[in-house]
């Protein structure tokens, strides 16, 4: 049949066109825009970005958030995944509850934590009734950068650990139980079983989870904005400010390109560090 040769291409065409129109084109436009520095030349927008008062602090905040949130999330998700594995009954229910935050938008999640942590929020009310504090106490302003940072970390962990958990649970279920039993028989302790058998065999899932979460963590914005406003500047937040408030799309584009480059670099690092030797694959 003459159609059969073209059928596969026909079937992937809608997705390809969609990606081209809504992803590839804007991507190219953004890159072009970022290098359109007018009289300042090719790197003009990047120079303005680097000279921005908030640039260094937003870069530092973004990296500190990624380096704090992602490792904590990985450890938490691995722990939660292993606990689920041990459960005999009600596993689906617990997994379902644990993944509820997946369905909550990051702005909404930020607002939930704002409601808990703001001056007259649930936390303070609770602490006041316990007699720990005398009245409304501020945790989230520029004078309390430490608690503000912790609040953002907590909100981010609450909001986005479920993605990692889902990937890890799927990965754990792919490991036949005989491997753990063999480890038991041959005398591995729980810790040895984890480090020598489970984690090495979970490597492909860990890699996917790390890449996905790290890329998303570099794009952290809405939850930070909801909880701290601009008291804790992050890269995407600055891009937003340049776009919305300063109406300077070109510098915003430079920020966007920088974030993309950082994400790509992180992905490359993970792919290299967690590379599975092809002959060692199951």
């Amino acid at each position, binding site marked *: 049949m003459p159609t059969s040769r073209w059928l596969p291409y026909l079937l992937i065409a809608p997705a390809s066109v969609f990606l081209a129109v809504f992803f590839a084109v804007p991507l190219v436009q953004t890159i072009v825009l970022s290098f359109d520095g007018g009289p300042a030349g090719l790197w003009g927008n990047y120079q303005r970005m680097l000279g921005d008062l908030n640039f260094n602090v937003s870069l530092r905040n973004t990296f500190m958030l990624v380096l704090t949130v992602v490792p904590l999330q990985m450890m938490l998700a691995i722990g939660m995944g292993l606990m689920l594995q041990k459960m005999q009954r009600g596993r689906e229910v617990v997994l379902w509850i644990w993944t509820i935050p997946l369905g909550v938008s990051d702005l909404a999640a930020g607002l939930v934590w704002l409601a808990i942590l703001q001056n007259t929020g649930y936390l303070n009310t609770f602490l006041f009734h316990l007699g720990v504090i005398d009245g409304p106490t501020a945790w989230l302003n520029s004078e309390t950068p430490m608690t503000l940072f912790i609040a953002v970390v907590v909100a981010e962990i609450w909001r986005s650990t479920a993605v990692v958990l889902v990937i890890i649970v799927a990965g754990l279920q792919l490991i*036949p139980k*005989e*491997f753990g*039993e*063999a*480890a*038991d*028989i*041959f*005398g*591995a302790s729980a810790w*040895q079983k984890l480090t020598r*058998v489970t984690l*090495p*065999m979970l*490597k492909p899932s860990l890699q996917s989870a790390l890449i996905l979460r790290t890329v998303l963590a570099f794009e952290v914005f809405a939850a930070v904005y909801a909880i701290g406003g601009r008291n804790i500047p992050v890269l995407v937040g600055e891009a937003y400010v340049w776009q919305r408030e300063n109406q300077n799309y070109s510098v915003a584009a430079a920020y966007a390109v920088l974030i993309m480059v950082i994400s790509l670099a992180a992905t490359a690092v993970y792919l290299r560090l967690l590379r*599975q*030797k092809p*002959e*060692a*694959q*199951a």
Partner: protein
Amino acid sequence: MAAITIEGVSKRFGAAMALEQLDLTVADGEFVALLGPSGCGKTTLLRIIAGLETRSSGRVLIGDRDVSDLPPAQRGLAMVFQNYAVFPHLTVFENVAFGLRMQKRDEATIDRQVKRAADLLQIGPYLDRYPAKLSGGQRQRVAVARALAVEPAVLLMDEPLSNLDALLRLEMRAELKSVLKEAGTTTLYVTHDQTEAMGLADRIAVMHKGVIEQIDEPTRIYSKPSSLFVGGFVGSPPMNFLNLVASGGSLACDGFSMPLTHQGPVLLGFRGEDVALVEASRGVGFEVKVIEPMGSHLLLTGVVNGERIRVVAPPQADIARGMTIGLQLDAARVVVMDTQTGKAL
């Protein structure tokens, strides 16, 4: 090296009884096969001995030690799994060394024992490879080498050959037998394949519905089954059974009689190769329905008094479909079972 003693082990899954008051002793250095159809509880029993499954009651002893409540690692045993469970992220050397490393042995000991186990299983050339580069048979050897490297008192094997193709299974069977004889390890081997059990084991324990029906040497399991189930399960073709009635101190049918004190209906069991083919007038009348030439013999399927019977004839025998021939039974090579209980009399 040590004996395995199982005393009154039971296992309940909810309301279902998987194992019922089971007793079994495997002598030091002995090879016992647990043979039975799927769902008979043989793997459950093996996993209880290994400590991978909890028991509902009873005791498990290895040597003189009650290991019933010890974790698997402290029971002094090794196990070979059906799907091998060879770690894909470790080289063959590290796989074989796994148990020794967990025991924190020194490098020299690890090296020596890994090399010895590898030589025994002939996987020396592959020690640096990863399991993905090995064939199924080679992975099986790695799994056995890993088990033998720790010099276990007891070796448990759960259908270790069932994932191999037929030819390789035959080869590995002979090899396993010689390797285990050389190592002298007490072995309990679970299988649903009777030829495997017959070929390998010193003794076979035939399991059915959570109980051991019979435990004996392979030849006796084959020729003197203690129950209808064992006779029908072991042997290919399975044992034939004729419905007869015993009376007056003997059991008789055409051209055959033997003394029997039991009165009433019984089953007379005999193997297809234990009959002599004679003229129809001199034996039990057997009407041939199907002839299957198997190369080494002819497999005849037919009826005696309306019951289906299979017998074996020499390959050149002059027999045609539809013929009636006589079967002459040998009183020394038959078993008599109670029709009611299905147990041997």
